[in-house]
């Protein structure tokens, strides 16, 4: 592999981590969705580049799924849901933006340390990809735990799945079954979520997960 190919792969995977960081400080739902669309777009580029570098044509399909489904259809649909529910206000964060960013930096450092240490045998592209992928997964988790709003938790979960796709494509020659399954699970997840959002709305007139907290724990 030439060093240019390597650098571009590196750049794209790094951009994905950056996009994950951008999610951490969004305060409005629409903006968060836009960043998610960007996230998925970068993922599509990254996967397409891997397809080219690895000469694995089936990965182009994965890239296409990421582009069409995750970067366009899901954000548009979620936009509509938000509009219909009238919840396009600010997102409540559990902890402050500054602390969240610090935690994010810590998580990225952690995943670099862990993954680079345990994969000295693997080829350079795969191991860096894996480290970036783990960062994206952990940042997705962070988005999920620092947001109270159900929609932003879903977005966090979807960005987490993007990280998994990055990891799967970085693992050279991994059979197609996994890529399809990831895309498939996002699809199902989306349907489930869609249904739930409407049901939650029906019951609470709000998609704020705080409203659910009243019922936490034991029945009284």
């Amino acid at each position: 592999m030439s060093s240019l190919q390597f650098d571009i792969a590196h750049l794209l995977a790094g951009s994905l981590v950056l996009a994950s960081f951008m999610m951490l400080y969004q305060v409005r739902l629409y903006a968060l969705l836009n960043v998610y669309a960007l996230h998925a777009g970068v993922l599509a580029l990254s996967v397409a580049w891997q397809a080219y570098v690895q000469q694995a044509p089936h990965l182009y399909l994965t890239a296409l799924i990421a582009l069409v489904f995750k970067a366009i259809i899901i954000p548009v649909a979620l936009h509509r849901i938000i509009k219909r529910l009238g919840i396009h206000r600010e997102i409540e964060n559990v902890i402050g933006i500054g602390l969240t960013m610090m935690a994010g930096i810590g998580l990225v450092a952690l995943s670099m340390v862990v993954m680079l240490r345990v994969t000295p045998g693997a080829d350079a592209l795969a191991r860096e990809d894996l480290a970036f992928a783990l960062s994206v997964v952990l940042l997705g988790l962070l988005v999920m735990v620092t947001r109270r709003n159900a929609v932003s938790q879903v977005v966090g979960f979807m960005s987490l799945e993007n990280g998994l796709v990055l990891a799967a494509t970085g693992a050279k020659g991994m059979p197609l079954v996994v890529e399809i399954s990831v895309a498939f699970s996002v699809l199902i997840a989306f349907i489930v979520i869609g249904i739930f959002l409407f049901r939650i709305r029906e019951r609470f007139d709000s998609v704020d997960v705080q409203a659910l907290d009243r019922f936490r724990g034991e029945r009284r």
Partner: protein
Amino acid sequence: MSFDVLSAILVIPAVSAALLAVLPGYRQTAKLNVVAALATFLTSLSLFVVEPVSGQYLLVDDLNKVFIVLTTLVSFTTSVFSASYIQHEIEIGRLTPAFLRFYHAMYQTLMFAMNLALVANNIGLMWVAVEVATLTTVLMVGIYRTHEALEAAWKYFILGSVGIALALFGTILVYMAARPVVGEGLDGMVWTVLVKHAAQFDPALLNVAFVFLLLGYGTKVGLAPLHAWLPDAHAEGPTPISAVLSGLLLNVALYALLRFKMMLAVNLAAIAPGPLMVTMGLISVIFASLMLYRRRDIKRMFAYSSIEHMGIIVFAFGMGGPLANFAGLLHMTMHSLTKSAIFFAVGHIAQVKGTQKIADIGGLTVTNPVLGWGLMLGVVAIVGLPPLGIFMSEFLVVSSTFSHAPWLTVILVLGIIIALGGLLLRVGTVMFGEPKGPTAPAEASYVPMFAHLALVLMAGIYLPPGLVAGFQNVAKLLG
């Protein structure tokens, strides 16, 4: 012929799920559900007679035979219970026929997903199956659409998805570890190939992979501190689903974990999975047994009891060795049978009394003697009193641990005793207190409950040599 058996246990539920999704009329569909589950169970029994050929995608060996037969058996008995349970729910208007069609279709989809997870020889396929099983149960937990059911389903969905995502990351890492040795492509995902070559994998990568797999599938097993979804999901969903979740789905996730444990055991340089599993198991036992004391909801209480027992089982498998593995397998079987029997009883009790609150249920042995004594027998079994099966298996777990690690035994026994106290204390008032609530006789199906309890009683007194030999064989496989 051999190929047919293996595909039949997948095709029957899949086809019935499709049929049940379109057929109207709940009496007929409930019957069809039972018939389909029975057919799957009988087919799975034939695995003992014919030896199916394992391929790159599907696999049958002695380990998963045990799991498959147990899963299909409890699926069948639960479908019988479900038929009478659902009829009552329709009558009181808690569920509408449209939802029922959905419910039955999902029931068979869940059976399909669990069977697929059990027979998958491909770690990717296994992951997909566990994911499908999670999603179907999420939908079923939320089926009543009450506040609590929605919250439970949402929590289960979020925690379950995160768990399953971590498991996928672990799976990818296993593939990465396998790739330099077995080459690119499908082989790196086939479990039988992985086990054969695992000795040459990079141990550091395997270690990290196992941590992710333990956290991921461990969430589904309900190990503390990843258990938060479990009590809610068990308490708020329809009771047949609580029975299936507790008796089967937790086992399926455990099975996935065991497969990876077997792979790691081959690689001598990798960490031993045992201590990790022992630790999580013990934490679950202690935590869950303490939580039993302040429960107000009867289904939630038995959900915590499930966490406790999964803890014991994971502890036993973590200790390893032929005897502890044997005890773990026996305990898993006994727990599945007993806990589903308990949920059958609790489901009907909640229907008769119209509540799940422990405080509002009393004097069952007077008002509904058959259900009351059935539940009592189940509780006596689940807390591990002799002569029932769980006493046997817990005794084996404890005694097999004693020679290796007496201090761990002390903690484990402490947990078991605390749980015994908690459950008996709570159930005492429900059973023998002042009669409370409606006293109408229950239209219950007692057969599944007493069939399970009879099996548990039999296992406590006499284990058939064939079963013992089979379990010993599996225990040796597990290492």
